[in-house]
């Protein structure tokens, strides 16, 4: 056990002190900082310059209401009444004094009509905003002409009341479901990235020790199985340190922000979801990590060059990608039978069972069964991995295939 801690400590400290770790952590912290300050950043970039629109109002009545409505809805579009002929105005647009020109006219039925001129018509959001405002004006004119009472009009425009009530008392409310979706989404993403990143880290770590041939000394001092698990847990600690740093920084930054930002994050369910979801998140996260990390260590022990490690970890990445894609589709339809079935497949359980637990009311036995299956798989993989590891670390060669897998098992076989 003592050696376990020495290896674990060594794995942890060398990783933490490594340049790659420091750089990726710093970059991510900067990204987190940017994300939490996203409002400020958007503001800095957007209020630089409002789009200047020249308006030629041939009706002499549409400009005023249009400009007023525009002012209320968007700060990025500024309307100016153009004092001159249409040709001069077009000229001004071409010279880029204005972003666009809009000519307002009335139809025979006394309804507003407009023509939009711009150098490029790729800025569709601008066109749409103008069109929308004009459409409202047109509705106003049309209803007025039809003699509709403004009060009646207000009633027509009022959104319908549509309450959603779940009859099953334990079912999650709409609000809860939205929050759950947010937290599930974040957890899925975190698991996805973590497994790929740290799984790879373990595989390359093992491959590095093999390729530098330091492995033979290591396993003559400590049993390969101890070595493998110390490595897995050492890297897990590195991961936890990193995630704790990110979450801590994120939380501190969000807390320091104004209420608006906090609200934005609350929409994702952060800080408001129920305790049990967090508990499940931690359980599935740890089990998911262990499953894939064991697999990665086993595969890493089979290769003798670091380059080959990347190749051999591909199946892991595929597995986790498939799980991720299924989970993403499950976010919209968590009750699908397909989701239910896949949630019991150990390689998918950490993501998909968590999704179900987060979004639905899953009977406790189903959760227990899936966790049991998952743990069983981890134990089997660990035992198999330990065997492969024992033989694999002594094996050197160019190829990296399933044949090696068998060879490694044969090498570690005990015959007494």
């Amino acid at each position, binding site marked *: 056990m003592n050696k376990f801690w020495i290896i674990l400590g060594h794995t942890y400290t060398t990783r933490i002190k490594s340049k790659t770790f420091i750089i990726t952590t710093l970059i991510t912290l900067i990204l987190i900082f940017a994300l939490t300050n996203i409002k400020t950043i958007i503001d800095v970039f957007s209020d630089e310059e409002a789009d200047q629109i020249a308006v030629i109002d041939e009706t002499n009545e549409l400009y005023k209401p249009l400009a007023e409505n525009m002012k209320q809805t968007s700060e990025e579009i500024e309307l100016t009444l153009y004092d001159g002929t249409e040709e001069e105005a077009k000229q001004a647009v071409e010279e880029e004094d204005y972003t666009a020109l809009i000519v307002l006219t009335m139809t025979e039925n006394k309804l507003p009509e407009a023509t939009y001129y711009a150098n490029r018509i790729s800025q569709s959001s601008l066109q749409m905003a103008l069109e929308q405002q004009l459409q409202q004006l047109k509705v106003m004119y049309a209803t007025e002409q039809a003699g509709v009472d403004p009060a009646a009009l207000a009633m027509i425009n009022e959104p319908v009341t549509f309450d959603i009530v779940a009859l099953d008392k334990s079912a999650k409310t709409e609000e809860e479901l939205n929050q759950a979706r947010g937290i599930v989404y974040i957890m899925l993403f975190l698991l996805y990235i973590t497994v790929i990143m740290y799984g790879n880290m373990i595989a390359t770590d093992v491959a590095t020790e093999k390729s530098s041939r330091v492995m033979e000394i290591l396993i*003559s001092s400590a049993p390969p199985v101890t070595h493998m698990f110390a490595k897995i847990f050492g890297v897990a600690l590195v991961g936890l340190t990193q995630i704790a740093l990110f979450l801590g920084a994120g939380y501190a930054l969000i807390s320091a922000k104004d209420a608006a930002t906090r609200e934005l994050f609350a929409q994702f369910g952060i800080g408001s979801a129920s305790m049990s979801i967090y508990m499940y998140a931690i359980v599935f996260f740890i089990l998911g990590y262990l499953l894939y990390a064991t697999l990665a260590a086993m595969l890493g022990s089979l290769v003798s060059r670091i380059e080959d490690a990347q190749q051999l970890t591909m199946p892991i990445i595929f597995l986790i990608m498939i799980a991720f894609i299924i989970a993403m589709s499950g976010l919209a339809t968590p009750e699908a039978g397909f989701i239910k079935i896949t949630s019991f497949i150990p390689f998918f359980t950490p993501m998909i069972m968590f999704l179900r637990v987060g979004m639905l009311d899953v009977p406790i036995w189903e959760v227990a069964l899936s966790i049991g299956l998952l743990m069983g798989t981890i134990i089997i993989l660990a035992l198999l991995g330990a065997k492969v590891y024992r033989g694999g670390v002594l094996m050197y060669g160019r190829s990296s295939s399933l044949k090696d897998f068998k060879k490694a098992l044969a090498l570690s076989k005990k015959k007494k």
Partner: protein
Amino acid sequence: MLQLTDVTKQFGAHTAVNQLSLEIPEREMFGFLGGNGAGKTTTFRMILGLLDKTSGDISWHGEPVDYGKSHLIGYLPEERGLYPKLTVKDQLTYLARLRGMAKSEAVKELQAWLDRFQVPEYLNKKVEELSKGNQQKIQFISAVIHKPKLLILDEPFSGLDPVNVEMLKEAVVNLKESGTSIVFSSHRMEHVEELCEHLCILHKGKAVVQGSLREIKRSFGKKNLSVYADFPVDFLRDFPGVTKYKAVMEGCQLQIENELVSQEIFTVLQGKGFVRKFDLEEPSLNDIFIAKVGASYE
């Protein structure tokens, strides 16, 4: 006493080590000779428990070698390997701690060794910055830093310049004198001849020769004889009992079947003229190796 009894290792259909029985005495240096693929490394790995033997028994002081004894065992693998990105200090304290040393003690020991090898400035250098020969010194330190009782050195001197070979040899001899049993393998006959009391020559997984150096040489029978004379000596080529004849500038070098032949030659030479040198020598290990393993091995 390290004892191997009928140890066999099979990799599939291939037998790497075949019915090997050895006794490696305490406080001695035991030489393992053999060509490439003779089974030296496989034997070492079985002694260390890295590989399981197919059959047979290995014991040290009557007990099997396992991880509980790893602090008593030092191992220098044939394929040298250290973490390239770690400093010498980090690296060796880690490996020493795995062998049961306390960190402070390991650092002290390491400094002493670096001083001894006249490279104290390497303490905080990364291994990849060192030359290959110096990496090998570091590797050697990693095998002996914890003062093992049993030290296994797989080709310890390969790839070193003569100065470093001497330095390492001296260190190995000192360790032996301080009570460590040392097993080492080598292609280089002269190293084994110089250092070992007991040895074993492996060929295709079998021990073709084993025992004490003196014993082996004596029982080999054949001797080397140098005859330098002022008259032609080529008639000795066909002399009964001469197995090999090699002409040199001043005379010839012979391999003879036994000591008695030398006396017969001595008699024949009488009265023929001036004999400058008549020298009866023990056979070299090289001669024995070639005779036993075959001239195919260079």
